[in-house]
């Protein structure tokens, strides 16, 4: 870094201050990571290790949580199990050691797929609509521009439960309840406000001169938008898309109130994974881990743009 050249500035903190600040921040980061790491560890524990006291940090890794996450099992008598052939695969083997046999796949995969479809569908729509509107707001004189922008933002601020009541009735009337399309439209409407605000910020930063030069070269305004502005805005569009994706991926309130099976996403499903005698914690932890890993990756990808995202594009640095 540039510390060597600026070390003598009065504003630069001394080495001791730096080390002190650094150690406090690292301490906070470590503490804040403990719950997350714990969940990921629990995913690889056997049910007995997961509920042992004192909590076990060292344990023999087991994939039982993942097996229980992906399968449903039924309890059988030892005689019946012995009468079956050799176990089919690792999960069947684990199940048999607990006097059970694998009965079939669980609902986790369909719920996960729903999450994927709904998140990607709504993201594509929201970013497409958002890019057009953002360009419109950024470049043209629109009557009542500030009011429209505020209106767009305020729709995102609505309490989800308050929105869910009429949406529930509306979807019931037009047959969109518990459909992926219904959820995609709903998430699009929530995400489009963020997309417009964020993308307007990104497009505002592209100099108008680029398009004007292109138009002098014979491009229409529309062609200039497609061939000059869009390529320039790629980073912004990608960042916005990831924000929309994360929101739709994480959303719970609408999902739990408006879907019951068909279109249910993973967040309402994970908490209701139940084993024999209460929650099957390794399975829940395994489901959580798989669900969170994409977010961790995205956060790392997005780290430079997080600030913009959480302030609707207002704070850019």
């Amino acid at each position, binding site marked *: 870094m540039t510390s060597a050249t600026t070390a003598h500035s009065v504003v630069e903190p001394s080495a001791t201050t730096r080390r002190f600040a650094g150690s*406090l921040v690292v301490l906070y980061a470590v503490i804040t990571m403990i719950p997350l790491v714990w969940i990921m560890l629990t995913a690889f524990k056997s049910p007995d290790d997961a509920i042992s006291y004192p909590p076990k940090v060292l344990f023999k890794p087991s994939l039982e949580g993942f097996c229980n996450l992906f399968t449903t099992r039924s309890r059988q008598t030892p005689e019946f199990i012995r009468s079956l052939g050799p176990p089919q695969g690792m999960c069947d083997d684990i199940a048999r050691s607990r006097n059970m046999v694998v009965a079939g796949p669980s609902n986790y995969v369909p719920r996960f797929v729903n999450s994927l479809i709904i998140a990607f569908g709504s993201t594509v729509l929201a970013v497409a*609509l958002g890019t057009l509107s953002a360009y419109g707001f950024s470049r043209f004189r629109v009557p009542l521009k500030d009011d429209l922008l505020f209106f767009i933002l305020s729709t995102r601020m609505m309490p*989800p439960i308050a929105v869910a009541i009429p949406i*529930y009735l509306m979807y019931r009337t037009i047959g969109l309840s518990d459909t992926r399309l219904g959820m995609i439209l709903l998430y699009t409407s929530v995400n489009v406000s963020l997309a417009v605000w964020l993308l307007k910020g990104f497009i505002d930063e592209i100099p108008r001169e680029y398009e004007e030069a292109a138009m002098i070269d014979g491009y229409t305004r529309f062609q200039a938008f497609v061939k000059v502005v869009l390529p320039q805005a790629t980073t912004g569009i990608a960042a916005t898309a990831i924000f929309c994706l994360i929101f739709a991926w994480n959303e719970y309130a609408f999902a739990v109130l408006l879907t019951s099976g068909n279109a249910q996403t993973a967040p309402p499903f994970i908490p209701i994974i139940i084993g024999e005698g209460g929650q099957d914690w390794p399975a829940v932890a395994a489901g959580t881990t798989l669900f969170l890993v994409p977010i961790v990756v995205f956060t790392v990808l997005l780290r430079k743009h997080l600030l913009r995202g959480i302030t609707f594009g207002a704070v850019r640095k």
Partner: protein
Amino acid sequence: MNELSASSRITYRAVMVRPSVAHRIRGLSDRTLAWLFITPTIVLLLAINIFPLLWTIYLSFTNYRANRANVPTIWLGADWYQSILTDPDIWAAMQVTAHFVIWTVVIETVLGFGLAYLIDKKFRGHGIWTTIILLPMMLSPAVVGNFWTFLYQPQIGLFNYVVAFFTGRAASSFQMLGDVTLSPWAIVIVDAWMWTPYVMLICLAGLRSIPDYIYEAAEVDRASKWRQFWSITLPMALPFIMLAVLFRGIENFKMFDMVNLLTGGGPGSTTEVASITLKRAAFESWRTGYSSAFAIILFVTVFGLANIYVKALNKVKSR
């Protein structure tokens, strides 16, 4: 100005190019194009946000129940509003919300600003550690709420174990989620864990927006570090802090997912924040008219705060 000159250039160009699809698009004035670009978004929001909102306002004046759609709807006027606004139980739910909002915002602001102040010292590797600290706020509140129920288990939970380890009490002697006095704090802890990074990130932007020369001038005037903090750092970062406080306030005022999974409003109604009361009325008792009125009350509050938020946003933007 730019739009005017651009559009005149477009018409000028349009004369010279052979007729085609492109020509027809070229023929569109900027004004038409602007509306073409903006209308789809507005239409979607009208259909999925504004129309339902108007419907909710209508329902809030009626006795409609979603599970008995065949019962004739009667116009009740402002009866529901009156009964909600004089109901001590709803008032109690608002106070539960207040406890949650105030404590989370206070803790998150103090911790978040503190962290931002430390990170602003630019120690080695601050980029990586900042990213690590930011992780919790990107996660799904519902999934977070759910896995914290595991950490809060009295017999087996890590949280209880750690507290027991440092205080010497038995880990099973207290239940974070089952105890009337502890559960309101249980939700505050989880929210603070999750959203402190949010406040930290905005405060960090505030601190970084303060130009060095101000500190240099203060240094020349021999102002103490303490003095500099109170008369430069804090006032100049204040608009950013306000922005974070307002946004966290609004978000936590309507908090649903995390609390619903952690406590579901219990034990009793000690953690029943406004959104949970609303959900119980709307989707468990199916008192649609009543809950619509409550929804409108919450909505107007959020909308009012959103006005202030956008004002704060513009203030920060002009920096």
